[in-house]
């Protein structure tokens, strides 16, 4: 008979040590058993709407939020259905997404990358958001896109116009519906040539940060291609509120066109300064002096007031567009909120529907499956006309609007008039275009957080 060394105390000790040892590694692994980050369980699915509610772009952020709430209503089958009736894809039935009722959480980006990432993280980690939508600045968009890529959820960008978002900073989990600086240049150039002639001398004032540079680069390239000469490009600090000292040299430079690569409050101030200096009444080189603002928005137009009369620019969307999708959206938005939607509102609304539709077509919330469903997706009926979500860089290609400040606006909402609808083909570029990171730019691997 062998002598057993098994004692009660020894067994307990060994058991405890072994148990702890076995359990220890699991402390540091993702504990959940789900197949991908924030897989919806139960009857609801949560979307995260991350928009600037304070700071310089708060107006746009709040407009985006209104549109996103409207989109959620339509997805859940409430209200009049909006663009679900005109959308070319019929996968959505107004019963939520894949039968899950849509709920949402909101956060404030404060137009700061850090704050935006903090609020996006809290939506992902605390509220279990499956997708992040919105935003009103390229810096924030790139920062949040990177976060979503790492966390393994989808990012549907809101208003972001820099080439980098789907250029050198493109990522597999990020999608952009809004247009970009290159498209602005490509759409504006022919109109500028037609309206102002081919032998103009342009002077650029550019907000001194990433978006300003990519826009300046794009506009310089496309205007020089039509024969214009670039006299000078001057960077202005982002925090400037008075641009007088930058405007004065323009008069003596021999330039006859001023291009303002500014956005938001910057643009309102620089344009007002330029008009106060009487630039638009001047004649240089025997031609009337002109001002161009490549990226327009309704809210900026409202801020600049009478100064924008006759000033050309480009937009992603305008509520005055006359197509089925646009009419349905404007009607639905107007009835609920009593005003027409801005172009940032439209882009966020479209992004929510596009996401939901991609989930429905893929039959799964897995970001990789959803991404695959969005890649190369051609659709119509969301307000912009026929649109392609290009697979190579996750950028939407659609018509771009060239607009002009109206001479005689009848209300606060028609301060801009559409000059031309530039067809998508004219603003399309190869995915490895040098302004978009060239051959080195890559989407990377899709991440579902598993």
């Amino acid at each position, binding site marked *: 008979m062998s002598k057993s060394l098994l004692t009660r105390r020894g067994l307990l000790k060994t058991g405890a040590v072994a148990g702890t040892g076995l359990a220890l590694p699991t*402390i540091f692994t993702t504990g959940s058993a789900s197949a991908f980050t924030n897989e919806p369980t139960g009857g609801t699915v949560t979307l995260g709407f991350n928009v600037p509610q304070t700071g310089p772009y708060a107006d746009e952020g709040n407009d985006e939020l209104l549109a996103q709430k409207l989109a959620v209503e339509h997805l859940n089958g409430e209200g009049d259905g909006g663009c679900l009736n005109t959308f070319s894809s019929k996968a959505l039935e107004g019963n939520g997404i894949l039968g899950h009722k849509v709920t949402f959480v*909101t956060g404030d980006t404060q137009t700061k990358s850090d704050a935006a990432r903090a609020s996006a993280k*809290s939506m992902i980690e*605390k509220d279990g958001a499956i997708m992040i939508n919105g935003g009103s600045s390229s*810096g924030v968009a*790139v920062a949040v896109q*990177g976060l979503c890529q790492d966390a393994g959820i989808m990012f549907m960008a809101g208003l972001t116009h820099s080439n980098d978002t789907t250029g050198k900073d493109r990522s597999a989990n990020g999608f952009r519906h809004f247009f970009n600086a290159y498209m602005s240049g490509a759409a504006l150039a022919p109109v500028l040539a037609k309206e102002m002639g081919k032998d103009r001398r342009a002077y650029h004032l550019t907000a001194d940060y990433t978006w300003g*540079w990519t826009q300046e680069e794009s506009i310089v390239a496309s205007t020089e291609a039509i024969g214009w000469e670039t006299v000078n490009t001057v960077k202005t600090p982002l925090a400037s509120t008075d641009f007088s000292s930058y405007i004065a040299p323009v008069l003596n430079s021999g330039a006859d066109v001023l291009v303002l690569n500014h956005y938001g409050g910057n643009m309102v101030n620089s344009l007002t300064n330029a008009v106060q200096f009487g630039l638009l009444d001047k004649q240089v080189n025997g031609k009337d002096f002109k001002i161009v603002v490549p990226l327009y928005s309704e809210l900026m137009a409202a801020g600049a007031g009478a100064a924008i009369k006759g000033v050309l620019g480009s937009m992603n969307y305008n509520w005055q567009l006359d197509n089925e999708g646009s009419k349905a959206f404007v009607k639905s938005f107007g009835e609920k909120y009593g005003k027409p939607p801005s172009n940032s509102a439209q882009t966020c609304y479209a992004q929510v529907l596009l996401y939901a539709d991609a989930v429905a077509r893929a039959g799964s919330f897995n970001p990789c499956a959803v991404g695959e469903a969005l890649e190369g997706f051609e659709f119509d009926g969301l307000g912009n006309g026929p649109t392609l979500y290009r697979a190579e860089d996750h950028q939407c290609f659609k018509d771009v609007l060239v607009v002009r400040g109206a001479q005689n606006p009848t209300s606060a909402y028609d301060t801009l008039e559409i000059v031309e609808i530039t067809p998508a083909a004219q603003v399309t570029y190869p995915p490895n275009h040098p302004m978009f990171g060239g051959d080195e730019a890559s989407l990377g691997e899709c991440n579902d957080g598993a």
Partner: protein
Amino acid sequence: MLGLNGRDTTVFVIVTVLAIMAPFLLNPFPTESGLAQFNAGYPDLMQRFAIFAIFAIGFNILFGLTGYLSFGHAAFLGVGSYAAVWIFKLFTYNVVPAILFSVVIGAIFALAIGFISLRRSGIYFAILTLAFAQMSYALAYSVLSNPKFNLTNGETGLQVYPGDLQMFHNPERVPDLPHLFGLSMRANYELSVGGWDFNFNAGYYLCAAILLLMFYLSMRIFRSPFGMMLRAIKSNQTRMTYTGLNARPYALAAFVISGMYAGLAGGLMAAVDPLTGAERMQWTASGEVVLMTILGGAGTLIGPILGAGFIKYFENIFSKINDSVLHAWFAALPDGLEDFLVAIIYPFIGKGWHLTLGILFMLVVIFLPGGLVEGGQRIGRLFRSRKTRKGETDEATQSTPAE
């Protein structure tokens, strides 16, 4: 214990327990309940609590002890973050070198800025530091991010791209994210007990461990002869000079130490989330740490930690309560009353969280000049005074609040 007196040991033990148990303490409500809105126990916010506590403790060494009010401390936090991200980009995702480098860079910056700024005191010192911080912000935002020499990547913020050099990084063996010798900072274990979910996050525990270390260090500084010198600067610098002591080296040392704390906080921020932007250096960020310290109680040991937690809680929890959440809370009430209550409360939550914080800050400054710590002491005294009247006097001498 560890060279601390009995009272400090108690405080240290309390902070240690709070730091370790944070995942439980910050998630008091079941996940599915309506009150889950107020849960703060998710990894990102817990990390922020710890990181900003480090930042505020460091700031308190300068402001609480010497009385020098720096309005540019965010600059050190910012350069610390940039330093850490550059280590990630060039060498390795291991957080140890990144954090060490961020402390070194924070020290160098603090030495340069402190050397110049400390020639003045009072409001002039504050303005000088503010000017330097705004200068760093402007440099990071645009000047140092031009296409020819891109050090900061401007508005977009510096982040790690797949094409970066990363000399010593081997994605086969270690996670493709910041890690501590293979343990990903993002690694998270979720413990579900009943309706509650508790998050145990590697990044948080790293921050918490460093926080405890830094808290211990600050206690030792507070109780050291060096700390006494710093207090002397605050109480009467002229008298100190007359006794033959040169105050400036002491003030500069305090400034550099607190700059290192800020750099460390910046490095940790990058370690748990490998991205940094220029906003980290903006004057609002510098103002925030001043608020944290004063709100918690400047010159006290635990005050800055409380203040940091308080402000970050407001920023992250209150700002996310929107009107639909409010409507859900009051759904049981009649429609008119519901709308009325929502209309009353709405300006103070969501995007109005600054307003609530501002009101609370005013209340604290007016009624509790010693910050939250004084509030705690008053409550404590209320209970104790029933037993004995004597405890009051040595309580008051224990921690005299600053300004």
